[in-house]
């Protein structure tokens, strides 16, 4: 596949800087190397993720028994808002594209870097500025925002907390997302290696391409909406506030025109990672390559057309409720195409269940539950019963955390040896995957039942009949905390002390497995010429890889 990927003893990107500082933090925070930028995102995003986890554990702790246990209701409101804002805007939206997209997209298409390396660095800096703004909004005198991560008007116009700064942080973070998307689209169009035709591109590349389009087209909508909320707060312009003649439902339209496609910014890269991991560990070319590639584009497009399913009970017209319900069911089709193709890929494959594969199995199980319960919510009649209950909370945690979060770990376990040149302890990783599965279902599955029984989301207190299930959920959150300590502890240890990894420990065939671990500054000694399909495992005969 890759002629010219000569294994020379060259310095890795850790040892060679792109700027005048050879070592130290400045060599990193001003680096234009896509791999270093990917790692900068990894460190920042992981730190915020752990803060979000902590906020979640504290929320669950308050809910261990009815009535007041630890905090006042206002602090609880701020805690779940903080949890949502951090997890959505600082972890899950940038997570996979900014970390793994930056690190692996150029390598997988045979490029030395992204199309605009400086713009890439600017994206990271904008992310940092947005994150700092969000953090400042927490500590300023009026206190953290308490609206929930959706910033719904009219409350967000009237709340006395630091709304404006916090939502402007989301506005700034949006620019980071747009610039990353712009960079990836240009990179994919312009920088594919000779022979890397569109249909020879790994499916992670296809998913990043579809994601980048959503980042560019949808993100400005939420940016403008946020500006309108700020204008409404300071000048009372009357766009959203009903007392001034505005329409609060308009806010929800505009918010979800971005935020529903944003769900696909999160999940499409995850689906791309799944399409990489399954062929590698099934030793079999992907089943239905073109169908999976096209389904990414189909999800990206149809994902624009379903936003009002978040608004079925807000008073939108019956006509639009029927249309959006139908469109919501349609978006399940391309998702189904992917799942069936993944399963078909495994059929009669020579499966080697290493940790990344086990994490993907976690994903397929959890994401399928999340997806199927989405149809319950997309159906008009059942949505009336379970809207704004724990059922919704369980559904989106199964999709977001069970889907994207699980694949964040799968991707980390899959590409860790390539990124750091070291291997982690396989047994620990397997134990973590098993613990995660148990913790996850303990934490979130009771919420489906509680939601169906009528437990509203975001409530500080609850009726005694929910106590047992609330406690199961809280114990699940402790187990999840332990799992996170195990995952991050073992990976951080392995970064420093893990044994040196083989350059192709899994027997993968996409371009990143043809180069050194960790890669050199320019990835390839010579730009490769691609001659085969992306998942042609007949190449393995000629490749150097670590056998079982």
């Amino acid at each position: 596949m890759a002629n010219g990927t000569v294994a020379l003893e060259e310095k890795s990107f850790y040892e060679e800087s792109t700027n005048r500082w050879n070592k130290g933090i400045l060599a990193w925070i001003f680096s234009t190397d896509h791999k270093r930028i990917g790692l900068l995102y990894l460190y920042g995003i992981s730190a915020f993720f752990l803060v979000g986890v902590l906020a979640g554990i504290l929320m669950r702790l308050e809910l261990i028994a009815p009535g007041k246990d630890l905090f006042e209701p206002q602090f609880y409101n701020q805690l779940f808002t903080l949890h949502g804002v951090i997890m959505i805007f600082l972890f899950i939206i940038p997570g996979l594209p900014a970390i793994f997209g930056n690190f692996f997209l150029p390598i997988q298409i045979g490029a030395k870097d992204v199309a605009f390396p400086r713009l890439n660095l600017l994206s990271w800096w904008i992310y940092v500025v947005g994150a700092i703004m969000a953090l400042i909004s927490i500590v300023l005198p009026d206190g953290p925002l308490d609206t929930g991560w959706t910033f719904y008007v009219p409350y967000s116009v009237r709340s006395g907390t630091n709304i404006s700064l916090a939502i402007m942080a989301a506005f700034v973070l949006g620019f980071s997302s747009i610039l990353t998307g712009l960079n990836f689209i240009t990179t994919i169009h312009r920088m594919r290696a000779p022979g890397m035709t569109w249909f020879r591109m790994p499916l992670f590349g296809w998913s990043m391409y579809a994601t980048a389009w959503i980042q560019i087209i949808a993100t400005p909508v939420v940016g403008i909406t946020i500006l309108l909320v700020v204008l409404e707060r300071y000048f009372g312009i009357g766009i959203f506030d009903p007392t001034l003649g505005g329409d609060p439902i308009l806010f929800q339209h505009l918010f979800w025109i971005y935020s529903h496609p944003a769900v696909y910014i999160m999940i499409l890269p995850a689906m791309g990672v799944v399409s990489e991991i399954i062929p590698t560990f099934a030793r079999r070319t992907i089943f239905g390559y073109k169908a999976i590639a096209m389904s990414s584009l189909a999800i990206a497009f149809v994902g624009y057309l379903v936003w009002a399913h978040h608004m079925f009970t807000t008073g939108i017209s019956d006509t639009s409720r029927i249309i959006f319900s139908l469109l919501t069911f349609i978006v399940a089709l391309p998702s189904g195409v992917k799942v069936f193709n993944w399963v078909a890929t495994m059929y009669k494959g020579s499966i080697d269940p290493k940790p990344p594969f086990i994490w993907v199995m976690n994903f397929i199980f959890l994401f399928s539950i999340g997806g199927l319960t989405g149809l319950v919510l997309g159906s008009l009649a059942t949505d009336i019963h379970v809207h704004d209950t724990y059922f919704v909370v369980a559904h989106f945690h199964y999709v977001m955390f069970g889907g994207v979060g699980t694949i964040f770990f799968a991707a980390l376990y899959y590409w860790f040896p390539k990124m750091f040149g070291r291997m982690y302890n396989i047994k620990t990783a397997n134990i973590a995957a098993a613990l995660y599965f148990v913790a996850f279902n303990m934490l979130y599955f009771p919420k489906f039942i509680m939601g169906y029984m009528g437990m509203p989301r975001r409530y500080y207190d609850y009726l005694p009949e929910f106590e047992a299930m609330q406690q199961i959920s809280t114990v699940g959150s402790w187990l999840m905390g332990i799992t996170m300590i195990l995952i991050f502890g073992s990976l951080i240890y392995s970064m420093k002390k893990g044994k040196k990894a083989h350059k192709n420990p899994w027997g993968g065939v996409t371009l990143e497995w043809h180069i050194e671990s960790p890669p050199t500054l320019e990835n390839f000694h010579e730009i490769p010429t691609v001659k085969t399909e992306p998942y042609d495992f007949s190449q393995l005969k000629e490749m150097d890889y670590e056998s079982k």
Partner: protein
Amino acid sequence: MSQHDNNHEHHGIGYGGLTLVWLGLLALTSITVSIAGISLGEYTLFVAMGIACVKSILVVNYFMHIKFEEPIFKVFIGISLFTLVVIFILTYFDISFR
């Protein structure tokens, strides 16, 4: 691509043409401001949006050079506009039938 080709592509219609487009934009802005004071009833929105569309077409084609670029950029803009139109239509299914 030669330097000459580059220059040709960069300037598109030259300074004279750009000035004409600019004057056209100013004229359209004047019209927008002028008719803001006239009551056109239910046509007000359509007229304002129509003028804004013409102005956008001029800016995109000449100032942003899309008219002189490769077809792929036109496809990109076409997809974005199509998405925007679909979003407008779907939103109107709510507003118009409430």
